[in-house]
């Protein structure tokens, strides 16, 4: 399994935000996307997720098990700034909905709702409406959403916003477990996240010059 980006460039309005970005993430690899505010980290993730059309270039997904021409977006789980959970519904209803809505990928099902809640350390509160939770708890539950349906690639946009240090450590463990399982992670972040093996893609912004630090 590998996710390949070839010569990506994206436009915001009139300006070219970045250009000529190529990378390749293989199974078990993580990549941190860093850079100043406005340098195009979120845009890059949204391009990879297929939510924005790139100006040039393409994102490819290759795997032995999924058919040729599977769009890269299908192999991805995207966790953006917003949690994609409904405050009116209970946590269980939210997670069950996403578990059922995402079709199994390559015949792998994700964790059950209770297992996922346990993995983020919030086992007793799945019956509460999502809107009752604190911002940090909501973020943790949004992270549980990544696990209820299996996708090999996690695209995380500022995953540790609104989190305390213990939750950050928890996230690092979960990401490492996902990498150990053969998954891939691409995270836009300002915090180091404590990942030892991850590569770093530095976005310098506006001029479109990027450098990759190994």
């Amino acid at each position, binding site marked *: 399994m590998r996710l390949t980006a070839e010569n990506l460039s994206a436009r915001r309005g009139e300006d070219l935000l970045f250009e000529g970005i190529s990378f390749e993430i293989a199974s078990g690899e993580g990549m941190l996307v860093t850079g100043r505010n406005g340098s195009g980290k979120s845009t890059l993730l949204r391009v990879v997720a297929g939510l924005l059309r790139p100006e040039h270039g393409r994102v490819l997904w290759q795997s032995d098990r999924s058919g040729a021409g599977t769009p890269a977006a299908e192999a991805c789980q995207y966790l953006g700034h917003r949690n994609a959970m409904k405050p009116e*519904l209970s946590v269980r209803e939210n997670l069950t909905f996403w578990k059922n809505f995402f079709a199994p990928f390559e015949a792998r099902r994700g964790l059950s709702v209770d297992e996922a809640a346990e993995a983020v350390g919030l086992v007793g509160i799945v019956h509460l409406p999502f809107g009752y939770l604190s911002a940090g708890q909501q973020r943790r539950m949004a992270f549980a959403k990544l696990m209820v349906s299996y996708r090999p690639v996690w695209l995380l946009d500022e995953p540790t916003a609104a989190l305390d240090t213990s939750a950050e450590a928890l996230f690092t463990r979960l990401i490492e477990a996902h990498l150990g399982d053969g998954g891939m992670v691409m995270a836009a972040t300002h915090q180091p996240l404590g990942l030892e093996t991850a590569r770093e893609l530095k976005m310098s912004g506006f001029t479109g010059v990027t450098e990759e630090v190994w």
Partner: protein
Amino acid sequence: MMALLTRDLKLSLRAGGGALIGVLFFTAVVAVIPFGVGPDLNLLARIGPAIVWVGALLSALLGLDRMFQTDREDGSLDLMLMQEHPLTLTVLVKCLAHWLGHGLPLVIASPLLGLFMNMDEVAIGATMATLLVGTPALTFIGAVGAAVAVALPRGGLLVSILVLPLAIPVLIFGVSAAYAAVEEPTPFLPPFLILVAITMFFAVLGPFGAALALRNAGD
């Protein structure tokens, strides 16, 4: 897909979902007409089907703008756009859920409001039947408007105005079918069947157009 249907239905029934708001607005619109027109029972009976239809049309337009906007605001729409099942199907299911949550209550409330307008049983039955067939078309047309305006922060009124011209044929044939049932020489079936045709036409075109608009609304 069933999961999406039940989720959207739950959302429209829970607090702030707006299913009840539409019915209340419908009631308000129709209930003030007798006060404005005066106690002329024959006149009320004659304009009854038209008033009930106009009220239903306006209430149906009321909740449309939230169809995709809430999903966009909390990021759910992004995840739906990434999925492999065709987006048109997702939109179709959302339309069905929206109609069950917002359109069907209007249809159910219409006999009561028909009594306000001194309509007889045949007129009430005909109005209810035409509303049952016609309101899905309003939802499907509205889905396109809602999808086009999804990125606008105050898109509510814009959606209604965008959608209104397309909704006029539904109103015309709905009302004329309801009148045809009451007035003897004109046949009921032709306008009713045209209404059915309009609904089926927009059931195909609406979700397709809305899916296209959502794909290109990306930012």
